[in-house]
């Protein structure tokens, strides 16, 4: 039971981080489809830079910088060259797969699993004070820095979106760009800012995936970026909704892992569980939305 709980948290962390990033772009009205690709890029670059510099922090920072560049590039192609934003996001996903495969082969001379050395992998620990609270304390035990950081970021995002002027401006841009513009908001700046934030979050998601392991496998994101995208849609532009959806999807991933370890059901079939649950959630959401439209 405890492992299921911890697995859910770690799976949810990655999806949540990606989804929070996507949420920003969704609020601004230009949804970023390229979450999967951005997460994958960071998943390789974080341990790589950590390996080169010897520091997990430096590795993360460098990786985030590059991930942000790629994220901004997605919007830039749309802004300057009139490319369809869905297509530029998709292009990023496809590019990331080839890019990481190429880097993995060229820089680390490995096409399969790449093991990075030269730094301390991110470990799990109990959070002092908070972990000692009865009952709730379980939440704060044996998680790693990324998990704790995610909780903090959810709160931060909630405050940012609901309570600050910036949050208001982003939402206004998303609702009606022209009106926002006449109110003095610069929509372009809002979009670029949203994409920068998205790059940061996706970068963290990628780091959260590989830094605790110290290893990278091709295609490691495994669809989690896409699942994060669905979480954004299901969350209805509300950070708490996005978080709730991410937890559900994280839980389905943890369930899949649990069954793979403890039963003899084919792991291949079990791996479809997160996708099927995500699809089911999307169907229920779409059906409900359609019903509301008709009323």
């Amino acid at each position, binding site marked *: 039971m405890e492992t299921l709980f911890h697995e859910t948290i770690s799976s949810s962390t990655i999806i949540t981080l990606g989804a929070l990033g996507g949420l920003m772009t969704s609020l601004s009205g230009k949804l970023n*489809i390229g979450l999967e690709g951005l997460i994958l890029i960071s998943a390789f670059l974080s341990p790589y830079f950590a390996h080169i510099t010897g520091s997990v922090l430096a590795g993360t920072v460098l990786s985030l910088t590059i991930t942000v560049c790629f994220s901004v590039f997605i919007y830039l*192609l749309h802004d*300057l*060259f*009139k*490319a*369809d934003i*869905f*297509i*530029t996001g*998709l*292009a*990023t996903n*496809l*590019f*990331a*797969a*080839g*890019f990481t*495969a*190429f880097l*993995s*082969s*060229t820089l680390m001379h490995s*096409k399969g699993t790449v093991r990075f050395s030269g730094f301390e992998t991110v470990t799990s620990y109990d959070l002092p004070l908070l972990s000692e609270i009865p009952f709730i304390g379980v939440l704060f035990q044996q998680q790693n820095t990324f998990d704790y950081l995610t909780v903090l970021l959810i709160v931060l995002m909630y405050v940012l979106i609901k309570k600050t002027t910036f949050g208001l401006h982003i939402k206004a841009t998303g609702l009606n760009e022209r009106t926002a513009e006449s109110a003095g908001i610069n929509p372009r700046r809002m979009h670029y800012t949203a994409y920068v934030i998205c790059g940061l979050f996706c970068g963290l998601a990628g780091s959260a995936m590989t830094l605790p392991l110290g290893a990278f496998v091709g295609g490691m994101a495994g*669809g989690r970026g*896409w699942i994060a*995208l*669905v979480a954004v*849609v299901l969350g209805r532009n509300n950070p708490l909704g996005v978080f709730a959806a991410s937890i559900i999807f994280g839980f389905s991933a943890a369930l899949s892992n649990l069954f793979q370890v403890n039963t003899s059901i*084919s792991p*291949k*079939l079990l*791996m*479809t569980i997160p*996708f*099927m649950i*995500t*699809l089911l959630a*999307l*169907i229920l959401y*779409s*059906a409900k*939305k*359609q019903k509301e439209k008709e009323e």
Partner: protein
Amino acid sequence: MKPKRILMHRFLIIGFSILTGIVIILLTSSNPEEAISAFFLTPFSGSYFFGNMLAASIPLIFTGLAASVAFRAGLFNLGIEGQVYFGALTGTITARHLPEMAKFPAILITMISAASAGTLLTAFSAFLKIRWGVTELISTLLIGYSMIHITDFFLEDVFLDQDLGLIGTEKIQESLLFEKVLPPSGLSTAVFLAFGFIIALYILQEKGNFGLKVRFYAENPIFSRYIGLNCNRIALLTMILSGALAGLAGIVDILGVQERMIRGFSSQYGWNGIAVALISKNNPLWIIPAAFLFAFLEAGAASGSIFADLTPEISRIIQGVIFYLVTAYGLIDFLKERRRNGNALS
């Protein structure tokens, strides 16, 4: 958009991808001359390399058509990888269990079964879209990912050839395979089939009533409904066609080159097909050179890794750059604007 601009853009893509290839070779190879020769020239040297390169472009023609058919209607079929893979297995198993019969109907039945498997998946996504408004961009993707896993399960646990060193099915009967047309390469009569489909789809798209309806639907779905088009039917038929083409991509490759289904044989067929569709701007005739370009990149990378010190992944990064290039059709306009106006960006 002016046809001349589109043509220029296509040449820009080809030129830039070649340039990228050269740059990367210069950066990563310790013997650039040898590597460049291996990458750019070897694929054309002799019937073995050239024939295999042509054979490799066949599946991309099919997946390119599959993606293109969907894009034409303003729809996104992102599950092509899964449709190809599932269609391939369905076709292979059907072929292996056929009773003794003449070659032509046997191959026809095999291809129909593969196409139907692909169609099953896309039709389901179309149904979800029509019935509950579920965006096909995500549903095709999720179903696609799932079907790859499910097909792998069947490959590993049910239809596995125990004597084979890899994970794959048993060989398909010799009598059912396409004939080779350029030995010793793997190029088969499938190439004629591919051209046939290109022409068929060109006619359907440009010359038919259906093509016109699809164009209206893509331009403005709401207006289309007002003028009496059955939008649901258009979306459904489009997705059915797209899935069928995807399903064919895999089985044609198996009957033409592979002779059995091996795990992961169709990796990237779907995604590269999408890039091919984007390069060709949904014009079926341009799918041929676009598919050929991708096949060439793969062949170049492979010979670069065999005959020089390149890594085979080099093809993937060049393809990656192309994915970005195809998005920026406005690039040419933008460059012209800059030159004319100095530096005006608005």
